[in-house]
């Protein structure tokens, strides 16, 4: 989170109206978008790890718990790739929940937030691979307001994810996990 604030401060610091400013702010916006995606991926991974531990801890005997834990945390898509809607849904689906329908039900704004997450994912890939030929990004520049709206969407999704996953673990183990 601190890194995001520092990048916002850097954006403000690149002042003036000179010809180099637009290029500089565009690079900052690219970095900002990649950082938002990275932070959101970290949140999703941590939430998954925490839920997997809470769930497997409730399994007895401990030998069975270790087998259970392996199945929950191996080959997790969030460890390898972007937190797309698909990877999020499949990884959290291991907890026996239809993840996105529950997320939509929790907050009606989450459909729009998911669309923003998709857009962020397209831009993140374009920036990371320096390939701007995809139709959703080609010929477009990225401004700070857009990145901040993605950040807000990720923040809102994170709050819903935390509640949806926590509720599902509670239903499974019979107590609030966090």
């Amino acid at each position, binding site marked *: 989170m601190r890194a995001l604030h520092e990048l916002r401060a850097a954006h403000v610091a690149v002042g003036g109206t000179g010809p180099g400013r637009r290029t500089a702010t565009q690079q900052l916006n690219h970095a900002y978008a990649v950082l938002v995606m990275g932070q959101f991926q970290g949140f999703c991974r941590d939430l998954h*790890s*925490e839920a*997997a531990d*809470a769930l497997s*801890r409730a399994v007895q005997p401990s*030998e069975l718990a*270790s*087998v259970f834990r*392996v199945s929950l945390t191996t080959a997790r898509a969030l460890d390898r790739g972007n937190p797309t809607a698909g990877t999020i849904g499949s990884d959290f689906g291991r907890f026996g929940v239809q993840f996105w329908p529950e997320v939509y039900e929790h907050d009606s704004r989450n459909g729009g937030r998911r669309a923003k997450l998709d857009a962020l994912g397209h831009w993140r890939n374009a920036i990371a691979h320096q390939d701007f030929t995809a139709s959703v990004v080609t010929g477009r520049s990225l401004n700070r307001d857009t990145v901040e709206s993605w950040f807000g969407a990720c923040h809102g999704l994170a709050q819903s994810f935390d509640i949806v996953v926590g509720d599902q673990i509670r239903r499974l183990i019979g107590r609030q*996990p966090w």
Partner: protein
Amino acid sequence: MARNGSQRRVFRPGDAVLVRFGVDRVPATVLEDRGLLGVGGRRIYRVRVTFEEPLDFEAPEEDVAPGPRRPAAA
């Protein structure tokens, strides 16, 4: 999510360890210290066990023990 606990880190990425795997403890390598994400703030490690293919998964610190030391270089 909840956060608490302040246990010091015992293992670092690259350390050879033994990790509980069903009824056995098997050799593994620490890939990542995931931090104090576990129940009650217990530390979680991401480890790799190599059978025919590598198998990466997470384990709480209580399931991880020091592995056999490598022989010192001559």
